[in-house]
């Protein structure tokens, strides 16, 4: 599906002394089968933005369009099935006595029959490499395991767009890599992933497009190369290295991922 945000504005606490304009006219498109990264510092509006994608938050002005249709005209439950949202530290919302019961929550809310629910639970847990955790209590798991269970819970809805807010926060480096591989795998299977992240190195490895938010506005959007070489001071480590060399050695090109950066640097050294 094509998810479009058109000129989105969002004002919190309107009319009170605490009024704050978190989004000041953001327009963005999420294409099918892509990994779109949304980056920006604290206060840039990232979390506010993604909560509009499944209408957990309603825009003060502007539109959210799903395949051209206004999202507010869709049934909420339908929209939330198609656009899955995983919050930061999602494991804090685990509540059922067993992992499989917890993952079953969303499919059950959709009104699916028990057999379908069980199948979805099985598949989602497997996709997250968490099949062996099915019968365990979510409260007895390690941080990384809880994270997987929580994400499986959203994946069980089989969304067309999966929005993940800082999915690797607090994880050890290897679990991080495993999760990023999963994200790439999801894209392969046809799901679009909107990845909100502050970690530019991780964005460099998985994003097809990057959108930079600054103080509630889009300050840049495009391919990782376009965005990061456009402002190498706010770029992943790979780009920061190569951009310092481009002046004297332009043949280095514009690699972003670590493998292509390594190849370019090796070529430069003649090794």
């Amino acid at each position: 599906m094509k998810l479009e945000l058109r000129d989105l504005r969002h004002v919190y606490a309107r009319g009170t002394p605490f009024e704050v304009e978190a989004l000041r006219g953001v327009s963005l498109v999420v294409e099918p089968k892509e990994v779109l990264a949304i980056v920006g510092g604290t206060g840039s509006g990232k979390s506010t933005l993604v909560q509009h994608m499944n209408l957990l938050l309603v825009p003060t002005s502007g539109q959210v369009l799903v395949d051209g249709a206004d999202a507010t005209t869709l049934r909420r439950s339908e929209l939330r099935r198609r656009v899955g949202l995983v919050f930061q530290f999602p494991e804090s919302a685990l509540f059922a006595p067993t992992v499989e019961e917890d993952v079953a929550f969303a499919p059950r809310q959709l009104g699916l029959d028990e057999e379908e629910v069980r199948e979805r639970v099985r598949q989602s847990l497997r996709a997250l490499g968490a099949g062996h955790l099915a019968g365990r209590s979510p409260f007895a798991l390690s941080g990384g395991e809880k994270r997987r269970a929580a994400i499986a819970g959203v994946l069980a809805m089989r969304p067309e767009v999966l929005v993940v807010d800082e999915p690797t926060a607090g994880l050890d480096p290897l679990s991080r890599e495993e999760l990023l591989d999963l994200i790439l795998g999801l894209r392969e299977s046809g799901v679009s992933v909107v990845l909100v992240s502050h970690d530019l190195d991780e964005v460099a490895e998985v994003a097809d497009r990057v959108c930079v938010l600054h103080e509630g506005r889009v300050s840049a959007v495009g391919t990782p190369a376009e965005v990061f070489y456009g402002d190498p001071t706010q770029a992943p480590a790979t780009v920061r290295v190569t951009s310092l060399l481009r002046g004297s050695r332009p043949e280095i090109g514009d690699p972003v991922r670590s493998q292509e950066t390594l190849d370019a640097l090796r070529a430069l050294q003649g090794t």
Partner: protein
Amino acid sequence: MQNPGEWTRPGGSFAVSCERVSYSYPGSGRPALSEVSLDLRQGEYVGVVGPNGGGKSTLVRLLNGLLRPESGRVLVTGRDPATEPFEVRKHLGVLFQNPENGLVAPFVEDDVAFGLENLGVPREEMLGRVARAVRAVGLEGYERREPHTLSGGEKQRVALAGLLAVEPEILVLDEPTSMLDTAGRREVLEYLKDLHSEKTVLHVTHHLEELTGADRILVLNGGELVADETPERFFSNADLLRENRLVLPVVPRLALKLGFPPAKLSTPEELAEAILARTQSGTRSR
């Protein structure tokens, strides 16, 4: 690096020492720590890494007396944390992973004063120490802020100020940046860096780039101390890294693959410089 006269109690030439320490959590099958021995000299900066569940957090809690070893001996400035926890905590402060759940008071300055209140420091003296600690972490102006209005990096700095106010010689950092975003991490590390020269620091982390300046890196895996290496040797040992579920950060990894010493080059700027230097001088390898 012994300080004559300091810590003249038995075992007192080290800031921290563990002798064959073991600990198992109640109800757990396997030991969290098994016969671990290590020493920290005064002024050293030592990193501790290893997979989750490998014993790192248990070690931290044994050092400050939250846990008592089943066997073996722990000494901090010559004292046993299990029998003299209050004393030990004057000399050893711990910065925990989750800043949110370490902030106890409704305002920043009150929280920074918490440790001093516990020690019974007179109020007049507290005022100065709190002000100095707040300055040391760059949070002047934040004194009357409420904790829930702060960013992660700011919260962790408040926690750090609270530790510094007590003026311990030893700081134990238990994954202090793992819940922070890039900006927060940078903030906290900046202020931690200043402390290496004055204090003995034990830094538990997953982020190896934080340990490039360490004197040594200890590896805890499965409750055992499996390695004790310099950063240089550690970063170059791919097997050791893999076995312990560790990943080199981007720059050192590139550096290693390009034939540079990985621990010496931790920032993109340093790597770029090294590459330029090499390509200009025309040499292929060093």
